[in-house]
């Protein structure tokens, strides 16, 4: 039986977390993935690189992000709730942690351009921001559907100097933006780094992005120890689309007794369906039909509108180290309003999923301490919510 300490370690040399992960990409970009694996290994072991990244996270991204004790919300639910405030980072979400790491790595590899995919636009905005900071060319692919529902982020990316390209194929959402970004990368991998936004894709991305995001969990652990007089939270929870904010906070608590709970949207619950598949470079649970055609996810949140999930989440589910649940769009809207009214914090729709689960499970969680990763702020979602609420 796998113990908790086996979880959230380095994958095998071939990029596997148990049966999940791997490098399922066209032959043309295998050398680029292998180069990235070598470069990341060497950079991550290099104190100079680590210190440069830490400096950026401090002075540019605004880390460490605070841990907020929620007085009124906790009273209302009967559950002690702590929020890890990734919404207070520069660009408004946890995405900046990963992007600064990958931008530094891009520079180290001597590449001059980055390409990225985006769903809600948070990763796209973060990538465009880093590209501007580092003076790199930046192209972001975004599905036509998402461009319409996240118009503001499209404008922000363009303002930052990025070229936003419409992903018009398939379902015209995040899944297709990934396809287009990969198709683009195949042709230009010698000069361009693919700045993937989540813990998905071919090896080494799921591992590398987790390492760039683990600062969330490492900080939160130290902050919890201080706030809880050395105790740990009973539950650590986060929303899961691709799963980078969740894996980031989980990573800090892998060797504790804390229960790890990932919350998927009901219309995009890849883990909930328990069927493995291969797409976008790795083997993981995947929403698909009986023939292996990938299904379109449907979620109120563009950032979670993805039919797959990072392979390490599939692994954590398969060994029982983390539990995955799903919530409906209606529950998410209620949670979005609740946090706004009780704590004066308008959350991104993505992390409102995690809160929606806490609200639904309040009797099960009564008296417990729950650490919730508030991965982003909700400014980008107010337009959409205006139509839904009023």
């Amino acid at each position, binding site marked *: 039986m796998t113990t908790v300490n086996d979880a959230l370690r380095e994958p095998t040399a071939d990029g596997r977390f148990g049966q999940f992960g791997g490098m399922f990409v066209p032959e*043309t970009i295998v050398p680029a993935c292998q180069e990235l694996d070598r470069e990341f290994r060497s950079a991550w072991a290099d104190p100079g690189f680590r210190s440069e990244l830490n400096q950026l996270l401090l002075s540019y991204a605004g880390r460490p992000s605070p841990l907020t004790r929620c007085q009124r919300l906790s009273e209302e639910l009967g559950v002690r709730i702590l929020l890890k405030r990734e919404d207070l980072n520069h660009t408004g979400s946890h995405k900046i942690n990963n992007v600064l790491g990958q931008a530094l790595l891009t520079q180290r590899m001597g590449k001059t351009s980055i390409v990225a995919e985006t769903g809600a636009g948070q990763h796209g905005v973060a990538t465009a921001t880093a590209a501007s900071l580092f003076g790199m060319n930046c192209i972001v692919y975004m599905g036509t559907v998402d461009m319409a529902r996240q118009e503001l982020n499209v404008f922000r990316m363009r303002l930052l100097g990025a070229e936003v390209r419409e992903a018009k194929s398939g379902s015209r959402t995040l899944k297709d933006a990934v396809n287009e970004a990969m198709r683009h990368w195949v042709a230009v991998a010698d000069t361009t780094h693919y700045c993937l936004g989540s813990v998905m894709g071919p090896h080494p991305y799921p591992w590398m992005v987790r390492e760039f995001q683990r600062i969330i969990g490492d900080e939160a652990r130290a902050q919890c120890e201080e706030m809880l007089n050395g105790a740990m939270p009973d539950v650590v929870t986060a929303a899961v689309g691709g799963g980078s904010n969740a894996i980031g906070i989980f990573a800090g608590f892998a060797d504790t007794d804390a229960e790890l709970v990932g919350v998927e949207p009901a219309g995009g619950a890849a883990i909930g369906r328990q069927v493995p598949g291969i*797409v976008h470079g790795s083997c993981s649970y995947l929403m698909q039909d009986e023939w292996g*055609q990938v299904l379109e996810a449907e979620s109120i949140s563009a950032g979670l509108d993805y039919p797959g999930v990072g392979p390490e989440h599939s692994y954590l589910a398969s060994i029982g180290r983390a539990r995955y649940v799903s919530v409906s769009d209606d529950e998410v809207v209620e949670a979005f309003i609740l946090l706004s009214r009780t704590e004066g914090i308008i959350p991104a729709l993505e992390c409102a999923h995690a809160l929606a689960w806490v609200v639904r499970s309040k009797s099960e969680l009564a008296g417990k301490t729950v650490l919730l990763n508030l991965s982003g702020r909700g400014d980008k979602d107010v337009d959409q919510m205006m139509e839904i609420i009023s």
Partner: protein
Amino acid sequence: MTTAADDESTSNVLEAALLDVKNRGGKCFVPYLTGGLGDDWLDIVRAVAAAGADAIEIGIPFSDPVMDGTTIQKANDLALEQGATPHSVLSELRSAPDIGVPLVVMTYANIAFRMGYKRFAASLKASGVSGCILPDLPLEEVDEWAEASAAEGVEAVLLAAPTASTERLRRISERSRGFVYGVGLAGITGVRDKLAESAKVVASRLKSVTSKPVLVGVGVGTPEQAGDVSAVSDGVVVGSAMVALMLEGAGPGGLADSVAKFRAALDQT
């Protein structure tokens, strides 16, 4: 020089057919057609065989064809809308044993993985398919599929790209069955105005490490380009140019005319 394929007792219908062309001093022409696209796709397959194809690639549509450009994507989506499934494409092929040239299925790993590699390989064999290309299974991920396909006598064709080291090209060539698929350029499928310089370079690099047939595809879209690259390679795979004709509704006659032009260009090489 012996190749790994020589040591195996399994079927090598595809490799034998292409080697036969090569040994006669000819160049191989392998067009790609999207399976399940339109009512007449099987008639197109027959017409293309009769017009001089040495083998035919049949695409099984996949929802996320990450190696393909807009033409093949469009054909994929259309075929899926028309109800094509791996089962329907393979069943129709099974009903047409009269095509007369070896068939090679091209699809993506998840189609085979979902069915199970063994079952997928068995259903290819049952449908008279000799080879299979899964472009998102590179060398590092191909072991399980290579074993399952070999057990059914299906030749697993591997892609070799210009970005690979010579050592990697050698290892790919050793593992590949049927032929070695040289990717003509760093990029996705689609017709280009000009043949990329990398096309002949990759052909020549592959020829120096293998005696298996080396066919170049991706970015080979006109008879001139096919003739040009075949001065070095043992032939070509032509996909998007064929599929564009299918999308235009050119029908069996239109496709056969085009194949004849490629055939003529290759026969002059």
